[in-house]
């Protein structure tokens, strides 16, 4: 069954990015949020993002119009029944996700793939909210979705081979990204490795070995990272980095995942990185370093 229509549940930063990318690839997107205001805001943000791309000559006005025409805001879960795939991207909180998955499950026929964009939670546990756990799979996109062509396809204990194959085909043939298969494990591959990298950089900073600016330069120039660990953390959102580390610290019980004190302090102070304009560095509204 070829995927032509995709439901995106939760239109925060990731949801917007996923919806925008899917529509750009020619798919019809049904987008749902908690309230009309939220969905309107999300659509406005997608439009803004497309405008930024036009400024960068990546898109034309006509293409923008086509992309926007493929994104349909809906306010009823029942409408998701016509999709071949539904991706949930609500906040990284187990109870919220369980509730949303149960709601999608109720409304979609069993052949519809139900994907979660979780970066740390247990797929097996999320799948328990579905009456057909074999159709639940993880589809972990990386921000910014438009630019990063990698998706972690996460298999829970009960995810069927058919669900996996269809998902892999969708990722690699339909949206033309590289899909890597990972088995359920906190943080999978990407979040686990990158959060440790950031956490270790925070320790280096705490110890007074080098400044944030210099640590970033070291990794950026020395090892060809696009951004150093601190700018990377600023771009992910320091609260998200903290939450991921806390989950991994709890689940693995290993000290190396214990979040740095500096990170906790900054999150408490509301300095979350790009989204608040201040993190380790300062940013303007368009997310550019100032």
């Amino acid at each position, binding site marked *: 069954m*070829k995927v*032509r229509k995709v439901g995106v549940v939760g239109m925060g930063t990731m949801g917007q990015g996923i919806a925008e990318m899917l529509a750009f690839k*020619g798919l*019809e997107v049904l987008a749902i949020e908690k309230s009309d205001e939220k969905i309107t805001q999300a659509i406005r943000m997608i439009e803004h993002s497309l405008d930024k791309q036009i400024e*960068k*000559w*990546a898109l*034309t006005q006509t293409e923008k119009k086509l992309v926007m025409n493929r994104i349909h805001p809906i306010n009823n879960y029942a409408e998701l029944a016509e999709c071949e795939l539904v991706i949930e991207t609500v906040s990284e909180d187990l109870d919220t996700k369980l509730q949303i998955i149960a709601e999608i499950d109720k409304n979609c026929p069993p052949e519809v793939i139900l994907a979660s964009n979780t970066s740390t939670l247990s797929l097996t546990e999320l799948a328990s909210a579905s009456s057909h756990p074999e159709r639940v799979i993880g589809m972990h996109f990386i921000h910014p979705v438009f*630019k990063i062509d990698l998706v972690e396809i996460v298999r829970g204990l009960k995810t069927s081979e058919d669900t996996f194959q269809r998902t892999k085909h969708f990722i690699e043939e339909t949206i033309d990204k590289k899909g890597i298969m990972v088995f359920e494990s906190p943080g999978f591959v990407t979040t686990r490795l990158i959060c440790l990298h950031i956490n270790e950089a925070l320790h280096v900073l705490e110890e007074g070995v080098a400044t944030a600016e210099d640590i970033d330069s070291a990794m950026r120039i020395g090892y060809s990272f696009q951004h150093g660990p601190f700018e990377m953390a600023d771009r992910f959102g320091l609260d998200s980095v903290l939450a991921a580390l806390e989950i991994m610290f709890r689940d693995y019980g290993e000290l190396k995942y214990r979040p740095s004190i500096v990170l906790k302090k900054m999150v408490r102070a509301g300095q979350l990185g790009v989204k608040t304009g201040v993190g380790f560095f300062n940013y303007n509204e368009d997310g550019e370093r100032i």
Partner: protein
Amino acid sequence: MKVLVINAGSSSLKYQLYNMQNETVLASGSVERIGMDSSIVTQEVPGRDETRDVSEILDHVTAIKRVVDMLTHAEHGVLERIEEIEAVGHRVVHGGEVFKQSVLVTDEVKLEIRRLFDLAPLHNPAHMMGITAVESNLPGVPQVVVFDTAFHQSMPKESYLYPIPTVLYRRHKIRRYGFHGTSHHYVSDQAAAFLEQPLESLKMVTCHIGNGASCTAIKDGKSFDTSMGLTPLEGLMMGTRSGDLDPAIVPFTMNKEELLLSEVNSMLNKHSGLMAVSGISSDMREIVEAMEDGDKNAKLAFDMYTYRLRKYIGAYAAAMNGLDVLVFTAGVGENSTHVRAAACEGLTFLGLELDHERNAVRSRQTRRISTDNSRITVLVVPTNEELLIARDTFSIVQDK
């Protein structure tokens, strides 16, 4: 024999049905929005009202089925039976180095077209879908593929190689291929017929100027050089494409503006040319209008466009050591008296004299627009790529 000509894109498809006994079009039409639940099939039959049908068409197989249904429709159709279609001709953008002329579709040919997906990732896969869709709807009907690049396969090495490490040619076949070949071929034949002289005896430059634009130098009846290269970005300035530029601009801009490859690619293909310079439009008609209203940027865009065109014509005259016939064709070439006049203005040193009255006449016919004394004959020849595809298909299938 009735021949169906198909030009399949990734989400749309155009078709013409020809009666080859008298080379007339029996019906023409298009399918748009393939892959959607509200696809549109439009068909025109000479002397009748246009027919439109909106339905769900999810793939090319269904699209071709709808086309066949439309052609054999009791009320709107032009055929009694589907079997009346005896051959199908397809436009294929890239034929690489393998295809030097049109060929009958076989398993090997299909394999080769697939191998060329890399060189034309936007076009060849869609053409392939068209070919397989015809196979499943009209089993056993012979199909012919006509390549945009084939006519230029006669270019000598000095025309088609780039002065870069030759390993790139060996490994990836990076060389100049040229495009619009079917059109350059068709109009050069028409021009020679109009002048009642053998094509082989004429040194000709054909200017196919539409949304995309290319010039071809034709000597001894063959393409000797053409302005488009590995991709249709090289050569003349176009509606939204830059044409020739210093390749160092690419890394320089990427660095300064922090652009991705896809962004710089899109910048040169979709945000450059007339559109970029004028800031108004990529459409020559609107540029000329704005220019006449005194818009300086439109005037600059027009001047750059025609200056670059003139340079190519001059270069090709030098490359062939002479020029007998200059041909204008396609949307802009056939219709813009301004572009033709400006391009020819600086070519008087070659003995070219444009007849401004003849140039101002609008017509759908092949016509001379130079004076009777002009050393170079300038012609406007309406292009008809579909007819050439139908002719090639007809002759290949007949000889089978």
